[in-house]
């Protein structure tokens, strides 16, 4: 194999992607099925002059990652369900303080300790709503090992560009399987770095309201002394009780993401043009579903597929457009229906949204999907 062609697990591809994107700091705490991310990071980071630290728990890991980023290194942590729950408070902190970082959650069977070694997609809603209070977040979810590499790079790019925590939502299937990955040459993919202040320190406002709504970020120690706090703050970065400032801050935080949906929303359409039924899917379920679409088409059913690579923000407008034409929508998920309820909210009321769900630790097979779809179609035909 060529040097740049590697046969990797999803977890390994994530680490390679991260280092490609410039990750030089990793803090974590082991947990199945994410552990390989920490392990490979511990082996590779020193080789590129980067730092790896195993913290005492997930809370500390998340905290250290924020500290690491503020110290100037691109930073990442990785965990699974229980650890993701523990990180929530500090994810909210990263969000309101606008400190770029990447959090990988390799989903496993929940709730609680659940099925630690089994796959699941049960943390989709948690990725958006897990911390208290409204806050912006970007959540990406890959469907293959090689895409894991690319979306990890994207995750860092988004984190830096929009100064926000980005969650990479993997699942155990993608995380643990091995596939071919072609590592691009340096420079082949654009790497984005945080915008630095250009003004003199006296004029620096750490949370300035600029046109792009993303304030320039000085790293600690670079000659700009400023304050970072999880309290509501004004553009100087100092706490305020002003309701006006609170509103302004929250608006900016939400808008810096929502104004850039064109850039942030990543998705894939497969055989959409003539589709009569539509699958909306993500993560490892996109694999079953693609197979499913192929089989259905062979059997004369015009199925199409819309794959969410960006889960949050949700590609609402895009789905609305598809929904103009396609009224029967199937959402296969390894949970009890989390993306489904989001789709239900968006579609026309003359549409039907069907959840194909399983949360027992097994991946849903193409056969199971097709059986379900055919059942529904038969039933509709009888109406």
């Amino acid at each position, binding site marked *: 194999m060529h040097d740049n062609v590697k046969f990797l697990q999803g977890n390994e591809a994530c680490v390679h992607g991260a280092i490609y994107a410039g990750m030089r700091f990793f803090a974590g705490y082991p947990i199945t099925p994410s552990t390989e991310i920490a392990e490979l990071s511990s082996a590779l980071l*020193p080789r590129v*002059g980067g730092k790896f630290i195993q913290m005492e728990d997930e809370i500390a890991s998340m905290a250290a990652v924020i*500290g690491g980023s503020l110290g100037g290194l691109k930073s990442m942590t990785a965990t699974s369900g229980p650890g993701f729950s523990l990180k929530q408070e500090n994810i909210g902190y990263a969000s309101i303080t606008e400190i770029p970082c990447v959090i990988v959650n390799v989903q496993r069977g929940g709730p609680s300790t659940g099925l630690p070694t089994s796959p699941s997609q049960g943390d989709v809603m948690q990725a958006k709503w897990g911390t208290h209070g409204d806050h912006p977040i970007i959540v990406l979810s890959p469907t293959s090992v090689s895409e894991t590499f690319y979306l990890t790079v994207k995750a860092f790019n988004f984190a830096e560009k929009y100064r926000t925590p980005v969650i990479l939502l993997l699942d155990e299937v993608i995380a643990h399987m091995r596939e071919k990955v072609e590592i691009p040459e340096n420079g082949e993919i654009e790497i984005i770095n945080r915008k630095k202040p250009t003004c003199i320190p006296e004029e620096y406002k750490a949370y300035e309201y600029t046109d792009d709504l993303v304030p320039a970020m000085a790293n600690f120690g670079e000659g700009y002394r400023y304050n970072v706090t999880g309290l509501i703050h004004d553009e100087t970065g100092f706490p305020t009780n002003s309701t006006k400032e609170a509103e302004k801050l929250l608006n900016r935080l939400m808008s810096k993401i929502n104004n850039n949906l064109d850039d942030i929303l990543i998705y894939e359409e497969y055989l959409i043009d003539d589709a009569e039924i539509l699958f909306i899917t993500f993560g490892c379920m996109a694999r079953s579903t693609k197979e499913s679409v192929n089989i259905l088409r062979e059997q004369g059913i015009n199925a199409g597929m819309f794959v969410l690579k960006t889960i949050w923000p949700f590609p609402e407008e895009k789905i609305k457009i598809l929904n103009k034409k396609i009224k029967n929508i199937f959402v296969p998920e390894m949970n009890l229906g989390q993306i489904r309820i989001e789709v239900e909210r968006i579609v026309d009321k003359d549409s039907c949204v069907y959840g194909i769900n399983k949360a027992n630790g097994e991946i849903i097979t193409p056969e199971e999907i097709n059986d379900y779809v055919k059942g529904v179609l038969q039933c509709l035909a009888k109406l």
Partner: protein
Amino acid sequence: MPSKIIENNFRIQRLPHIWCSGCGHGILMRAIAVSIEELNLDKEKVCIVSGIGCSSRAAGYMNFNTLHTTHGRAIAFATGLKFSNPELTVIVISGDGDASAIGGNHLIHACRRNIDITTVVFNNNIYGMTGGQYSPTTPTKDRATTAPYGNIDKPFDICNLASGAGATYVARATVYHVKKMIEYVKKGIMHKGFSLIEGVSICPTYYGRKNKKGSSVDLMNYLKDNFVDIKLKDKLPKDKLNGKIFMGEFKNTREPEYVDEYFKIIDLFKKERLV
């Protein structure tokens, strides 16, 4: 017009601080500023990291790189900060609750790792910010809003705890014994490794009032009368030590520092590459 030391080290437009009249935290915050000033540190490289609590509000006033984090987690944030940029002088300011209740785990692990961070605990024996609940350092039998019939918990000796966990510089002074405080903070900052300095503070508003211990002056007098330098332990007669609390330097050892050790690993590969 503030004094030079205040002007040089504080965001004076944000003063006076929100702390109550007679709150000891202001005394400790100044002691840290004096230490930084006297050590002639590059202010651009000084980082103050704090958690949540009255004490943790200090970060907002001090004119350095300041990071006001979540409750109990300051040391974990600081660990990331220091590790990512070892040029920084990282000082954590934390309360007794912040550092030893919710943040206890991060404290003991930083002690164990011996990472070059200086932590100053503003110990007022109470949760001030939330209005006077007992903390892990509230003495047994004292009253607090959640101990209306007297606290039954045994308090931590934060210095003992840090020593047991492996910190390499451990000292205690009080808001009465400020010169000592400055001495220890300076030593702590210069110390290569994790140092913990407990600054015994006073909270007249909650701790003092709840326990009918009088004004801030009374509380200061209590510190004056009851804290004894550990150096005198073997010199004073037993009865003079009765009920007294020790202050001073409890530990000062040199052990490998975390970031240094990590750089050795990085260097391993650097060398390889150079060959």
